[in-house]
């Protein structure tokens, strides 16, 4: 019976296709330079828009103190129409002319969404939005709320991120770790503006050192979950490749990072959401060398010979190769009888792992 596991993409060179979107409730604006076939830089803006939130109701009749019998006239005094953008202080309605005329000005910047009698409904502009390309590449598709960008490079999907983004050079933490880093003068430190990669779990002190050194980000296998709130307040990306607690680093990820050290990379520390597509990931742009690299496959059935990542104890983080797929469920270390695979792990040991705890390497 075929089994379709989740896929984690860890590839040295792949064709990367990513969508960038505006929230559905935002109003898109024309973004100069966002054209099909054009090249974008990682920090280039590909989509612009306004995020609208709350509504304001303005009663023209009440504002001009019209008598009840005159209330119907309020509608005639309105100077704006539905669908019109208004600026803060812009004239919405006027009664009378000249210096003695009265004006109702917009108390907010926003969009007139409805006019009903003498009532004007304005949806307030909460903030302007700018969506970055997040990786250098070529724009393939442009729609009102989304663009599709393609690029070539190494891709490493991670377990958790703090919601920040950075496009920067990355380096491994010095041998004496963050303690050694703390002794450097931030003004002349090589780590200033650089994403720091550590193969050791993080603690709060490490994050504070990274902050003090004005690092552009931190990548590590894991940290205690009680540091989440602190990490979310930092302005630079914090990315965990494995998860929370003290997790061992996945050798494949750190080898790939070591092979590309001092290159620029996109660190997109998306906060994982079980109901969305997005996963935190590192994209290291690389030249394809004239040959179009493959796009990671995401819907393959598990087969003997497949390379897999073990996601749970006792071998979490280890990469292995499926050597056998027993027909019937097997009793595994936890005592559960579940569909399982025999996996030859990177330490040459063959272990029985529940299928649910395996992810295919894309």
């Amino acid at each position, binding site marked *: 019976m075929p089994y*379709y596991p989740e896929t984690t993409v860890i590839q040295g060179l792949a064709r990367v296709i990513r969508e960038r979107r505006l929230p559905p409730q935002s109003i898109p604006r024309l973004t100069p330079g966002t054209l099909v076939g054009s090249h974008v830089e990682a920090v280039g803006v590909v989509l612009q828009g306004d995020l609208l939130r709350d509504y304001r*109701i303005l009663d023209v009749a009440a504002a001009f103190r019209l008598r009840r019998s005159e209330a119907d006239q309020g509608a005639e005094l309105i100077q704006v129409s539905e669908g019109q953008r208004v600026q803060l202080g812009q004239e919405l309605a006027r009664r009378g002319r000249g210096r003695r005329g009265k004006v109702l000005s917009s108390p907010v910047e926003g969009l007139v969404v409805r006019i009903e009698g003498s009532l004007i409904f304005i949806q307030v502009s909460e903030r302007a939005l700018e969506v970055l390309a997040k990786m250098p590449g070529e724009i393939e598709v442009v729609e009102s709320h989304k663009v599709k960008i393609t690029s070539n490079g190494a891709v490493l999907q991670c377990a958790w991120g703090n919601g920040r983004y950075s496009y920067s050079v990355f380096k491994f933490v010095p041998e004496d770790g963050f303690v050694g880093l703390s002794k450097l003068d931030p003004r002349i430190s090589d780590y200033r503006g650089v994403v720091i990669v550590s193969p050791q779990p993080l603690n709060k002190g490490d994050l504070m050192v990274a902050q003090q050194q004005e690092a552009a980000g931190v990548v590590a296998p894991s940290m205690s979950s009680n540091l989440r709130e602190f990490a979310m307040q930092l302005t630079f990306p914090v990315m965990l490749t494995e998860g929370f607690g003290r997790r061992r680093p996945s050798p494949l990820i750190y080898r790939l990072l070591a092979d590309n050290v001092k290159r620029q990379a996109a660190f997109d520390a998306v906060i994982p959401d079980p109901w969305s*597509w997005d996963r935190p990931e590192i994209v290291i742009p690389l030249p394809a060398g004239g040959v179009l690299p493959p796009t990671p496959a995401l819907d393959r059935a598990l087969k003997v010979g497949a390379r897999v990542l073990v996601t749970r104890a006792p071998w979490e983080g280890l990469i292995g190769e499926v050597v056998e797929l027993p027909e019937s469920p097997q009793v*595994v270390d936890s005592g559960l009888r579940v569909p399982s695979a025999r996996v030859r792990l990177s330490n040459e040991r063959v272990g029985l792992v529940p299928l649910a*705890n395996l992810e295919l390497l894309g």
Partner: protein
Amino acid sequence: MAFEHVNSFLVGDIGNVHTRLVLIDLVEGQYRLIASARAHTTAQPPLGNVSLGLDHAAQNITSLIGRELVSEDSDQLFLTPESGGHGVDMFVATGSAGRPMRVFLVGLTPEVSIISGRRMLAGSYVTVTDVLCPDDLRSEEEQINAILSGEPDMILIVGGTDEGADDILLDLAQKVERALSLIKRGTMPSVLFAGNKALRRQVKELLGEHTSVFVAKNVRPAFGDEQLFPAQIELALVYDDYRSKSPGGFDEIGRYSQVGVVPTTQGYISAVRYLCELPGRGIGPLCIDVGSANSAIVAGVHREPHYLIRTDLGVGHNAVGALQAVTPEKLQRWLPFDAAVDDLWDYMYNKQLRPGTVPGTPEELMVEQALAREIVRLLVAEARPAWNVAVGDELLPEFRPIIAAGAILTEAQHPGISAMLLLDALQPTGQVELRLDPHNLVSALGVVAYLRPIVTVQAFEAGGLVNLGTAFCPLGHIRRGRDAMRVQVRLPDGQVLKRIVRSGDIWVASVLPGVTVDVTVRLARGLTIDGRRRIRRRVVSGAAGLIFDARGRPLIMPRPKERAVRFTEWQMAVMGRERRARLETEAEPLPSMDDLLVEAEPLSDLEQEQETGDAVLS
């Protein structure tokens, strides 16, 4: 529509982690569960299409029984109708996968219509974003922002009796109309109207130009009359509509399914309605479902289903929320090893990152099972007031049977552990019948009951559930270590198993599943079952054997320093490995199995004792 020609049903249940399929067909004039299978749910990206998971599960059934189910035709998912031993007459779907539906609730009075509205919603996977009623002190601007800021998927309007005043409710509907008219981008919420029937046409005309308006019977047709079921049926249609608009390919499944995609718990509620009608002891059935993102309890109390769904409690997608709700300290009570609070949080955060994974070590399994126990306890505590049954604060009314669903409860390492999880979490008293529903058959049959009730009745009678067995759980306490239960189990071949179960212990009589035995239990002073100290019952043994739980009720948790030993003893006992456990933990030799297996005593002696009511243990 008549469904007399329909003989076979394929019911798919799409959960957040697992997609289950059950095939029910007519065998020798009776509907039975033929086969079931499970696959990973494929609602989430990158696959993003639930029909793939259903396809995988159907392939699994085909490989089990050789019956082809999947259609090669691109415009149908399954081969319908059944022909030549392949295919199926009808496919229906239930689902709990995905984000819960956000609902804004509008009603006339907080004490009456709003409460009925909330009760009605409690049977589905919803989150109430906010409430609006006439005595709301917010300005109109604030009220409109309240309606729209929660980005509801549905607006429920309830209120007014069928002959009651209508102006105020109409005024509220106009506020809703004004709010809907302002939505220019994003998702337009559907409206479900279940209020004063005199306003149906007006509300539909008023709101229908903006969105889909569903109309149901009034949840409060008269002040003292609450009718939730018709509105729940309509809510299921709204849910199907919502799901079909959500990503994941639910629209396709909704088209193939005869009833759209019905919320899984709606199936449970419907099934419990039927189970309540079946003859049996106790006040009615109890269904517990602990899932990855949602957990639900549906109780049949005096022939009426009572239900509670928590869309923030689960052992996968909502593991962190569940730990927040139950607290790590309560979890630690169920762990026979020291687990630091920080480690428990780390574990739940990791589980939430990968909710489809299973525990990799025995310790991890115990953590998840501890969480499941506490989720069930929380559900019972919150649902109990609505049952309105007078038992002690800590005690469970006499529900029979108790049915558990959700992989954490149904797929433990041993049936005995599943039984213990239920006994620990629910702490039932008396004679308790425990069932497992690993295929979500109860929900499936509940939905099929909408179409052909006879299928539901016959499939339940044919025993589609896993019979875990019967547990005897005395009420009361005596000092630990004293003789609590004197048990005699008479096997069909005349052999008798005898055992004295000490206070604080569990004993499982190793009887093969499906064997009917006569059980006699004599209890020590201070303990009772059904108010008596001596009972005699004929019961059928289940997968976990026959369980005699002499730990007392309410259950007193072992002190931390004893926890490891006691939990290990209990676990070993329910798995039928009591002897080894005892020998590891106690020096005192136990009688061998040969000592326990003795010649049958004449039945008349027992009957005589029962009649005289002599205290056997004092």
